């Protein structure tokens, strides 16, 4: 029993380390597989004012995370998009990934929809440093 517990703890620790490695790989654009640049697969601008250049793992749609990079390719925010209708229908979006564990501030606001997530939804934006919001603005 103790062995099994140790094994489980060990696996969790290994997973955490792996996540840390992944996090390092996501710091600069492009983040690589399985992420795709949103503007390559959807009719959206390459750099969206307020959101930056977005990458997403298609398997995680619609919630994301969408990884937001500034003009210099620096990871600046992790963004989640959750349709209001789905939330009202009791859909939960649990255990979502994150681009970086450093979060300086969070914005949550309504969006009427856009290609890719056409239903009215919430944008949950986790900024990864104090200047990130400014760098993504324009």
């Amino acid at each position: 029993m103790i062995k099994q517990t140790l094994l489980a703890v060990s696996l969790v620790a290994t997973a955490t380390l792996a996540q840390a490695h992944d996090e390092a790989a996501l710091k600069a654009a492009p983040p690589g597989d399985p992420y795709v640049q949103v503007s390559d697969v959807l009719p959206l601008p390459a750099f969206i004012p307020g959101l930056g250049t977005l990458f997403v793992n298609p398997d995680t749609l619609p919630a994301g995370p969408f990884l937001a990079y500034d003009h210099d390719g620096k990871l600046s925010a992790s963004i989640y998009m959750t349709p209001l209708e789905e939330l009202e229908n009791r859909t939960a979006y649990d255990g979502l990934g994150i681009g970086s564990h450093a979060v300086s501030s969070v914005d949550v606001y309504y969006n009427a929809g856009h290609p890719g997530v056409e239903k009215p939804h919430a944008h949950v934006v986790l900024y990864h440093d104090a200047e990130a919001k400014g760098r993504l603005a324009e």
Partner: protein
Amino acid sequence: MSWTRRQVIRLGGGAIAALGSPLPVFAAGETVIEMRGTARGERIWFDPFALAVAPGTVLRFVNRDPGNSHTATAYHPENYDRLRRIPAKAAPWDSDFLLPGESFEVTLRVPGVYDYYCIPHEMAAMVGRIVVGTPADPGWEGPAEDREDVSAEVLAALPGVETILARGALRREERS
């Protein structure tokens, strides 16, 4: 009242009284309809969202929303199998997705009422109505009567023909 670039010429005594008052006559030309949105995409709209023009007017849709793409798509079976909300003799159009700064032109020649929408934003009632000519024009076809293919929000966002003819163009601020 905010008329478009080609100004309206009103006929006085010679006008038709089909709506209880003289109908305007609009000069054909080119008119711009902008696709607009707030910075965070909370609201999106066509500007103007309702418009009266003369038959033969060239309409140019321009995406002025820096953070979003839009379409101008006529309600018609040829466009995603939607029910027709343009005159039967009119050709449907679909701009496809316009990125910021891109534009699309269509010429409307058949008198009647044309309803159109933005594909990714129809759920947010980003729709528009264009009145071409007046009910006195030969071949005029009034607004679609269907109330099933579109949402209640879309129907509520489409002003009446009489209002559009009376005001020439309706903009978002006037709708709220």
